């Protein structure tokens, strides 16, 4: 049985949707499964909606998650829930920013990585893969804050 895990990450341009999706994708890739990631961007720098589909499992075909089949929907800002909720399957998990106590975030911009921490609790990916992905996708000087954010979500 070819069970595919579907994750959508959504938010507004500039919030780090694509960065979060790159980190997740890299973490999954290093764990060894087939993976595809797809997103529509191009005009995202001007604050419009952005979303990214990540699919992984034994063999992934279409890079786009069929409507109503996402296992996880990670949304970086509350007001982007409504226009993305259709992607989630019945019984799927919605991960929203209020899952994180933002008072505890040293850098508010690392909310994307903090929410990946929440997602990581549901996925069978070694912590070392996550750390390596975070290291490879963010500037060195932001590594510690982001690991802290990741751990906050993962707790």
């Amino acid at each position, binding site marked *: 049985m070819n069970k595919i895990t579907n994750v959508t990450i959504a938010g507004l341009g500039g919030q780090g949707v694509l960065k979060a999706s790159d980190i997740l994708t890299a973490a999954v890739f290093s764990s060894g499964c087939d993976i595809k990631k797809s997103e529509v961007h191009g005009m995202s*720098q*001007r604050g419009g*909606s952005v979303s990214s589909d990540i699919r992984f499992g034994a063999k992934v075909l279409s890079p786009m998650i069929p409507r109503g089949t996402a296992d996880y929907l990670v949304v970086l800002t509350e007001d*982007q829930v409504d*226009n993305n909720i259709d992607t989630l399957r019945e019984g799927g998990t919605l991960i929203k920013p209020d899952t994180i106590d933002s008072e505890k975030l040293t850098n508010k911009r690392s909310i994307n990585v903090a929410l990946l921490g929440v997602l990581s609790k549901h996925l069978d990916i070694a912590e070392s893969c996550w750390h390596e992905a975070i290291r490879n996708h963010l500037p060195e000087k932001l590594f510690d804050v982001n690991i802290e954010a990741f751990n906050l979500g993962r707790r």
Partner: protein
Amino acid sequence: MNTSKKQLLSGNEAIALAAYHWGVKLGTGYPGTPSTEILENFSRLGGKAQWAPNEKVALEVGIGAAYSGARTLVTMKHVGVNVAADPLFTAAYTGVSGGLVLISADDPGMASSQNEQDNRHYARAAGVVMLEPADSQESYDFLIAGLEISEKWKMPVILRLTTRICHSKTIVQPRPCDSPSPEPSYQTDRAMRVMVPANARPAHKKLRQKLSEVALWNETSALNQAISGDKSLGIITSGISFMHALEAAPQAGFLKLGITYPLPIEKIRQFANSYERCVVIEEGDPYLVESIRAAGVMVEGKDEMYRFGELNVERVKRILAKDASPEAILPKGKPPQLCQGCPHRITFEILRDMNCIVSGDIGCYTLGVLPPFSAIDTCLCMGASISVGLGMRHVLDEKQARKIVSVIGDSTFMHSGITGLVEMVYNRPQTGHLVIVLDNNTTAMTGLQEHPGTGYSLDRQSAHQVSIEELSRSLGIEKTYVMDPRKEIESLKERIAECLAGSDPAVIVVRSPCILSVKARKK
């Protein structure tokens, strides 16, 4: 060169990597979503890549390199091929010496484009072999195959991508190059290179002959893949549609075409005959289905409603079920806006308050059409702001004519605005005209690329900087002004009013850097 490790790459990155591994000597193009990252990555890897002022120039530079025997890559978005169509059609006649692959990155669904034209028609119209990959691995492999076909038959090849191929990341296994890139050297061949009618007539016949050879070869090419399945349903498809269709109907038989011009028509006939029902699944126009039917093979197509937008698994299931009922309307996301602090905002506020009729152009500044500005009245294609504005000036009564302003970005000006300026001084409207160049010193829309006016090349080396104001003055436009919208709002307003009241051709270069580019440069 490490080619052993699997990598997770976008289609664009995979193409850049294949071009680098196969020793492409020159990559040239003009930015355009979704193609832009190909040359940027090729340059990052160490390849020689450059931005041309527009796609016609890019393709001509590429053809020159390929005439000289070099492996060459030329990249552009679908509408760029319209600009480059003139050299393309005749390069099909002349052929090339070095491998030449033209990337056409189409945008079905218009994620970031002004139309969703289907460039597969170009392959047939110009008589150029076309390949269509379905993921990043195939993007890598098909670029190489494209170079091989181009070198073998000495003709340009189109590699047609779509947004989902360009921007999706999938796993790629690279491989070591098994055919070294030839050293460029020019061999005189006037009969094939000088397209006067006496040479072009036989060249056209030669082209058709080469195409029939390719078609014959394509009947057994490994680039077209047959997967047997349940006899009740056979699906003919190509590109990303293959992935959606395989997921939608895993039990079906498939003929996945890698080369979609010229078609392996006998292979298709045989496939169609061995299934009870044979359906063509393709995104965009009914290109495959019409070509296949024209050859007398009866295949099913899709309802007209599926011509619009991208396909996906759900839509393929509907096509297979012959379901043409209205589709669910998906909630719309938030549209993009001009950044807070974007210098373009100031000009649009002024134009709005002056109640101008604005002949606009394409770039970030097209977002001036949205509230609170609502200050763009037309947007057609790159460069059209100046010429469309002139046409309006010529025929409108004086009262309306004096409200017309053409607004164009700096990259767009370099791309195709200059000839509009020449038109303005040559066929000068009675009321004169005003062109505002929004010079933010970058190509912001597509992700901050350099252009001939920025003073830097693609790889951020300093380059000669073309001056917009000097160009304008050299055409005899005395009323050429440069203004800073942040420091001179009042005088900018006055200057615009003065130009609209006068009857001379005028150019105001409104100069202030894109705030995102300033941030990016600081990093």
